[in-house]
């Protein structure tokens, strides 16, 4: 038995007889930690949550919560008997009760609990659902229904909270505010949470660890910084879609050579033999703009992202490279103009495949 608060060991997650995600293992060390699972639609993220909640069974591996096995081939604690709460992505409010009654039903689960960490009023305030308390589920919007379901799950104060795309229907303008409040309340009340999302920004903000699920596997389980900057596979790079892979040749233990960019220095995350041909990950933040530089490329696209621009540059070998520039930069470059890249190029952590 491990000392982890929650642990999944070698589990195949499946629906019926169809395996969705194979041989998954990860753990949550401490009570109150938040982890996020990222992956494309239909990959099996929801299946993982349903299985942890006890709604699907397993016949390989084990799931352990607070030192007790809750799912294994031989042992399956019924959903109602494991103190795990799941907020579904779709509207799962009881249709014949008002929003208020729906949320109050959640309090019944831990009626006897002396240490009430979250109050009804606090939650209503957090999720801004005052106006809909007396309405029925069919009278409210999808985003409101999602927030109401979230409130119902939170108020149960479970040992483990599972959130399936909790803010997918919430307005963008409201999303960040809720994310902040949600994180605060989960941390303050020490509710251990697993969040499933396809929004990497949401995952990186909320989770202390992130799992990337691709091709029926948990490809990477690490803290958000490492998932973003040190992806462990080409699939993860492609999924996060925040960089490109360019051909390069390793020229020393601290440098590479690319036909377009020239010499690139930095620290290799994983060593490669000198002379080997690799694919080097270039993320938008790795290159810096310098109007005075003689290394110039043609701008073929410019995306305005509020705080920054992402320029897409075309090299002589027709490689497209993204470059991040602060949006307050003194001037902007139009499409077809030349764009200078600062030399020498130094990347702190060099990721190659």
């Amino acid at each position, binding site marked *: 038995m491990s000392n982890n608060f929650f642990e999944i060991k070698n589990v195949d997650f499946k629906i019926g007889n169809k395996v969705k995600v194979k041989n998954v293992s990860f753990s949550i060390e401490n009570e109150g930690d938040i982890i996020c699972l990222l992956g494309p639609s239909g990959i099996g993220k929801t299946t993982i949550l*349903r299985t942890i*909640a*006890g*709604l699907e069974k397993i016949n390989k591996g084990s799931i352990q919560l607070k030192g007790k096995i809750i799912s294994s081939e031989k042992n399956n604690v*019924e*959903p*109602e*008997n494991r*103190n*795990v*709460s*799941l907020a*579904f992505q*779709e*509207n*799962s*409010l*009881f*249709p*014949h*009760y008002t929003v208020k009654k729906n949320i109050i*039903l*959640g309090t*019944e*689960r831990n009626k006897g609990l002396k240490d009430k960490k979250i109050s009804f009023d606090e939650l209503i305030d957090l999720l801004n659902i005052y106006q809909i308390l007396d309405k029925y*589920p*069919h*009278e*409210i*919007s*999808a*985003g*409101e*229904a*999602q927030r109401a*379901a979230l409130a*119902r*799950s939170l108020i*149960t104060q479970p040992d483990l909270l599972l959130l399936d795309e909790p803010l997918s*229907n919430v307005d963008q303008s409201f999303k960040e505010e809720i994310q902040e409040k949600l994180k605060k309340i989960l941390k303050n009340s020490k509710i251990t949470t697993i969040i499933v999302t396809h929004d990497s920004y949401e995952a990186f903000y909320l989770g202390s660890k992130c799992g990337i699920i691709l091709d029926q596997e948990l490809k990477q389980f690490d803290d958000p910084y490492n998932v973003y900057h040190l992806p462990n596979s080409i699939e993860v790079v492609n999924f996060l879609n925040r960089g490109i892979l360019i051909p390069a040749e390793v020229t020393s233990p601290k440098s590479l050579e690319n036909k377009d960019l020239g010499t690139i220095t930095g620290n290799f995350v994983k060593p490669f033999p000198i002379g080997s041909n690799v694919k080097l990950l270039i993320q938008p933040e790795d290159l810096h703009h310098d109007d005075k530089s003689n290394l110039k490329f043609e701008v073929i696209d410019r995306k305005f992202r509020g705080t920054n621009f992402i320029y897409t540059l075309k090299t002589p070998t027709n490689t497209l490279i993204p470059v991040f520039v602060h949006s307050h930069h003194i001037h902007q470059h139009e499409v077809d103009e030349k764009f200078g890249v600062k030399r020498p190029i130094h990347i702190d952590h060099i990721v190659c495949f």
Partner: protein
Amino acid sequence: MKFNSWYISSFLISFIVLIPIITVFTSFFENTSNYYEILKNTFLIEYISNSFILLISVLFFTFLIGTGTAYLVSFYKFPGSEFFKWALILSFAVPPYIYAYSLTAFFENYGTAFTILKNLFGDGNYNKNIPKFDGMFGAILSISFSLYAYVYILARASFLYQSQNLIDLGKNLGFSKFKSFCKIILPAARPAIVAGLSLVAMETLAEFGAVDFFSINTLTTGIYNSWITFDDLAFANRVSFFLLLFIFSLFILENLSRRKAKYHFNSKGGFKQKEKIKIYGSEAYLAFIFCFLIFFISFLFPLSQMLYWTLKFPENLFDLPIINLVLNTLYLVILSSFVLIIFSLISNYGNRVSSNKTLNVLSTLSISGYAIPGVILAIAFITFIAWFDNSIIKSLGFNSIKKIFIGSILGLVLVYFVRFYSLAFNGIKSGYEKINISVDESAYLLGYSKRKTFMNIHIPFLRNSLLFIVILISLEIIRELPITLILRPFNFETFATTAYISASEDLLEAAAVPSLFLILIASLFIIITSKYILRENNE
């Protein structure tokens, strides 16, 4: 596979309901008398073709009337639309055989129509100008105007739950009202309409009173005659077997035609309450005329005819033990509804939590009791009890159990249970289809056991569906004739049996009084319950 107490209860309920149906099927292989050969060479084709014509015509009329009226009152505001939305259910209060008596009494030579014309215009030879609604057409009209409410109620419930988004989508695509109706509204309500038509089909094939009254030879009358005249139960069962196959074929055809199309979806909270469109001028006038005509023909007309006879022959009113008949009818209604609702709920929930294919098939088969004519069910029940008593009970040395089941309230309620199980089961099932499975799962995750989820989440949600089902069951039992006639305890009468006995003695005028009471009680029941349902829907 999840073998829990819900699974076992559900399995047992379905199996018990299936016993008389199995009896019908096994009887198929028994020897029949010479009557079968005689019939096969003479009237069998006529029986089959008449049944087919009757079925298709009734389905056509009930679809037109039921869906048309449901569409008008669900989507439009026009003078009287608030009244019609519940008044149109009142036709349920008039069983086909009473409608047939009214139709004949009004249009026959020297009937009520003749009297009206004579009073208005003086003596004259009006009989040749008064149309005669008898024979096949009379039977079709009687059954259609009595049964269209099945389609109306289910289609309307479905229309009410349609989101405004659907309607707006039609407008956005540039559809006319008619095109929106055909391409969007009607397909979305298809499961409900088909469910209504299935009930109509089964009722039509099991109908005896009106068909017999108009002397139409159908499979049902064939079954009845083979039992009454030739005492050939095996042949009766054989014909019933064909009827069952016919019904199953209809179900299979409908299921195949649907393929994977989904006709309803679960709202993700984006449901937009529909706003009724106010119509004016000739459109409003036509909508009113259509609904009023249906209401008049289906309800006011037979009610007036029965009232007219009752007032014309008041002595029949004083001879009738009204309180006794009311109590008997209510006793049967309350007891049967209670039993049907409880067991259908358990069976449905067992199916839902077990998700077991065998159970699913068994449940589907068990609802076929509705397709078996009441006469056959009653006889199959007697046959089974007699066999069980002789082969098992007596061989074990116990006293005969025949008296407990035959000619007793218990036996009567049991056969009602088999006959009307599909009404209760399907009604609850369609209610359950509106509860997303994630609602159950949310309840489990809030710490609710299966029993608590059933009691605290499902039952309150299904309350309206249950009320609908209680109306349907009550009306069926109030109107039910053959089972009550065969299995009722000695001296235990209902309004239906009293009316039938009078009519069979050629005392149609005397049949009017119990018929009138039957209509009034059923109407009262419908009015109270429909008001409640409309209030619940915030209409």
